[in-house]
């Protein structure tokens, strides 16, 4: 059973909770194939997308998910204020709560922002990515897609390649996959490999070919040169050379290796176009599955809030 008010990350979830989200998402996936793509599960509820970082796909995915559940959706593109000027995140959250919204979906550049917001409002908070910390729904849709394609998670060998240090997608994937019994390998240039990865349950590799060899799936992260404070690579071509997933490299991997990417892709940097559009790629399936997973998450937190309210009235 789901009793959490919020979804802040995968680190704190149990295996059972992860499985519940995945199975709920499975039942919601069918909705998007209907003539009338709507169920009344969240009718009368208001979902606020509070985005402090530019994001198209995650924001749109949450919006579509909420609308297919019949919720009303409000999008707020907020300016990340420098904390001392302008409205604080807590104040913004309390104002949204005062508008009688039911769920805040928050994207913020500060790690821990979703947790802070959740502590300070009584309504549900869903983390749509906080700094380098977690991006739980992205990892859930990655895991959902893997399970859908390969039939299981337990025992799968999954490699995550890219700038692990600054990746919330990597962190959420490591927690989620490890809890569900996958063998996770993390591959990055040394300077972009944060400490403590092994204690999180993943294996470390500094060699892309080694990480691809034997893998059932590879999740390729976006290389964010604009965020690379340490200037790990002088330019993007060197990155492709050293860590990029190319057709040539895939030839040496398992024939039916699944290739994933959270998007948006830098074609020709972390992944070549042939790979992105190739037979092994499930990148567009990921986008489709994102809706089902987010419907499941919105549904579960809303349901938990409703049962808390019922209990309070009894």
């Amino acid at each position: 059973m789901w009793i959490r008010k919020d979804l802040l990350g995968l680190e704190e979830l149990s295996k059972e909770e992860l499985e519940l989200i995945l199975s709920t998402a499975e039942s919601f996936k069918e909705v998007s194939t209907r003539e009338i793509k709507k169920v009344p599960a969240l009718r009368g509820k208001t979902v606020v997308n509070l985005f402090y970082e530019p994001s198209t796909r995650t924001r749109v995915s949450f919006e579509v998910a909420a609308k297919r559940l019949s919720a009303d959706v409000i999008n707020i593109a907020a300016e990340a204020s420098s904390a001392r000027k302008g409205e604080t995140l807590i104040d913004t959250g309390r104002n949204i709560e005062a508008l009688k919204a039911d769920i805040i979906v928050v994207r913020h550049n500060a790690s821990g922002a979703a947790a802070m917001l959740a502590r300070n409002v009584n309504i549900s908070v869903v983390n749509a990515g906080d700094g380098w910390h977690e991006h739980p729904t992205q990892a859930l849709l990655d895991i959902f897609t893997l399970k859908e394609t390969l039939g299981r998670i337990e025992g799968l060998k999954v490699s995550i390649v890219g700038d692990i240090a600054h990746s919330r997608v990597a962190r959420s994937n490591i927690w989620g996959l490890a809890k569900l019994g996958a063998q996770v390998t993390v591959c990055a240039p040394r300077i972009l490999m944060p400490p403590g990865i092994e204690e999180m349950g993943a294996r470390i590799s500094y060699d892309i070919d080694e990480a691809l060899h034997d893998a059932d799936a590879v999740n390729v992260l976006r290389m964010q040169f604009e965020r690379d404070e340490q200037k790990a690579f002088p330019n993007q071509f060197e990155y492709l050379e050293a860590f990029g997933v190319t057709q040539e490299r895939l030839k040496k991997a398992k024939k039916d290796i699944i290739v994933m990417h959270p998007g948006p892709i830098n074609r020709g940097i972390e992944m070549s176009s042939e790979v992105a559009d190739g037979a092994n790629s499930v990148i567009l399936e990921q986008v489709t599955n994102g809706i089902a997973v987010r419907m499941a998450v919105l549904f579960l937190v809303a349901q938990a809030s409703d049962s808390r309210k019922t209990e309070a009235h009894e």
Partner: protein
Amino acid sequence: MNKNNKILIKGGRLIDPANKLDDIGDILIGAGKIIQVGKDIKVNSSLVIDASGRIIVPGLVDMHVHLREPGRKDKETVASGTKAAAKGGVTSVLAMPNTQPAIDCPENVRLLKESIKNSAAVRVFICAAVTKGRKGEELTDIAKLKKEGVVAISDDGSSVDCDKLMLKALSKAREEKVLVICHSEDKGLSKNGVVNLGLTSTRMGLRGISRESEYGRVKRDIFLAQKSKARLHIAHVSCRESVELIFQAKKKGLKITAETAPHYFALTEDSVLGYDTNMKMNPPLRGKEDVAAIKQGLADGVIDIIASDHAPHTKNEKDIEFEQAEFGVIGLETELAVSARELVHKGILSWPQLVEKMSLNPAKILGINKGTLSLGQDADIVIFSADKKWKVSEDNLVSKSKNSAFLGLDLPVVVEYTVCRGEVVYSDEVYRH
């Protein structure tokens, strides 16, 4: 209360490490001094305090306190900070100079002294800056500052990065017989970090502060102290390697002393995982091995003293995104109780040893005549109960800021009376009897 009135404290457990005293007895105070210490003192006094079942110790000396004056009275004032000190059993504090403006010239020392004269509830000693504006560029006039009564210098909050300048500061301080207190941190390494580097920083998706950024600078500071033959005090030690370096330096006979704060032995980095900004301080909370080394260092005498590093910040500065929130926690009101809970109750220090670390040793390091119950001494005395509990909450903290790392915790020591200069500056009406 009139200074000339006598106070008789009766029947408590007197602990006075300076005189190797740990026995049930009485103390008589008059004219602000300790007149008599012994058994069954009989005298007419205006106030008799029954201290049976209580512990009586010299007033605590906290040599690391941010009173925020001048400049940031919204965080704390001399009045509110010293009131918090009195409540925590602290009768002498060393006020750190990272104020606005910094305490870096005689004029600013006088500014602070004026405020102390008008509003301090306990004794306030002054630490001045090592460099002007604490910028690490130009030394302050240490001789002149000393003449104004400054007892130590520190750029606390920052380290003096330039080796040559630091060496010069140490040499000058040695000439003037002023203590240098180091905030040992290599900001080149720790820049933008907010939590302990390692699994914690990775899990939280935050930039880390490595142990190396602390102990690398501790190593340099010890080296410069050796070269200059100056007396050096290392503030807020948080990691195991620092403890080891200080141990080695002491073994060589260097005049180095070291401090830690209660949060570094009472809490580990696990406490910060929920992004509670009251767990954000610099240096950051470290790992279990570090906490074990700090405790061992306290037991072995490698770490000489415990100070609070009382660092008040307003709610506006703490209730924001973790990375942007200010570093630091308050601690004057909880340090004795937390230390008792973590060290005495867990058998790491005896009561006399704890009193030494929190009263006698800091007094010796600062060269101030405090921390004892000797006859003729200024009557700075604390009476506390070690078998009652209180819960830390924002409502029962008197500091102007409420950023305690121990909110919600039950603590096992209740200060019942704090006497400073022979006057009762704090008494706990709620818990007494």
